[in-house]
């Protein structure tokens, strides 16, 4: 392991002073140092989206992001999406549509959907499918996931 580098990471509005080796990914730092375990480790290759977080509001793969490169950026994980024990409307819609299944992909799906709806509150079903293109659900429950998100926009899939 390389020498550690001191840095401060801003996660969910809070600053965290850390010392991390340069090869450590944001995913590893979130899960192992900061205990934000809602972010899941899937493929480590940017193929499955289980590790997705938002950086300055845009979805990125935390498994492909080196923590040292993310100083001064605003990182949002699934832990901050729920407000005061209230599920986020996206989370509620997923539950109501029976779209959560095993749940492993869901944190990434919620964040990808949140980034989409924050930018475009009225996406088409095609927009939704494209925005979720990098999120793999191993239960293959895509239809209900898309239905759930579309229900928030008034679109009919």
């Amino acid at each position, binding site marked *: 392991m*390389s*020498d550690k*580098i001191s840095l401060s990471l801003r996660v969910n509005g809070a600053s965290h002073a850390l010392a991390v*080796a*340069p*090869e450590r*990914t944001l995913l590893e730092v979130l899960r192992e140092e900061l205990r934000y375990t809602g972010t899941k480790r899937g493929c*480590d*290759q*940017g193929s499955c*989206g289980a590790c*997705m977080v938002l*950086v300055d509001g*845009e*979805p*990125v*793969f935390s*498994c*492909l*992001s*080196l923590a*040292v*490169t993310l100083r001064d950026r605003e990182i949002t994980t699934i832990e901050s999406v729920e407000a005061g024990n209230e599920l986020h409307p996206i989370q509620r819609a997923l539950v109501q549509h029976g779209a959560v299944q095993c749940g492993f992909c869901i944190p990434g799906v919620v964040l*990808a959907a949140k*980034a*989409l709806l924050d930018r475009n509150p009225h996406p088409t079903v095609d927009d939704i*499918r*494209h*925005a979720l*293109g*990098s999120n793999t659900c191993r239960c293959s429950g895509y239809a209900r996931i898309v239905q759930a998100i579309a229900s928030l926009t008034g679109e009919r899939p």
Partner: protein
Amino acid sequence: MRYAEPETVEEGVSLLSSTEHSRCIAGGATLVAMMNAGHIAPAMLVSLHRMRELFAITESADGLWLGAMTPHRVVAAETRLRGSMGVVRSAAGQLAHPSIRNMGTIGGSVCLADPSTEMPVALVAASARVEIAGSGGRRIVPIEDVLVDRFKTSLGRGELVTRILIPRGIEGAVGHHLRFSRVSGDYPTVSISLTLSMQGDRCVHASVVVGSCGPVPLHVAAADQRLLHTPLGEEDVAAAGQLLASAAAPIDDVRGSAEYRRMLIPRLLGRALSQARELAHV
């Protein structure tokens, strides 16, 4: 592993040339994936994140200079990339998924030189030029001289890409990128980038480049010539497509056999040309 975040290109160049097995890190979308898989273990990473000039987008008389650290998402939304320059914008918007477009950069795409991704194909169709910084100063070279083989560029040790010029191209021309993939977001089985200009129903300029069909983007002067001064009729498109297909050197892989790829080229070419004409309203 050592890690550095120099603030100037010159400092970066000096670090890269003085350290063996050093690599630049831009968006990380490919480099970190390769590190995670244990394929590479650089002795030093030189981060480009603090080099402000690499994020700049500047307009000049020649065209638009895109800083190497410009993410694909920003390229896809850059409205100054219009006319034939629009081929680069069109390709950036179709590349992979939103999360990869947020991470991957145009400079990273050039340096990766992956023949089956969008950006090299579009940059060749746009006749882009690449500024490369090294210990001897800077040089500007055509994109086709940078991409020399599958995952191989002509960059020397200690050199890094600073910015890319998308030339304005011919007045009235349009640019378009069309990809064919098994599912949206996958690597293209075949892609076509082109710039096109019509006068009435006659083609007065065509530059057609094929991706995923060889070690570098495939650009065949005879195919462009075959389209020139024609109304882009069925026969013209089929003949140009045939010239491209016979010059192609595709591989067999999970996305399609070499034979299948060759068969796709003329068909995609026809579709890409008619879509481009719709964009140009001719």
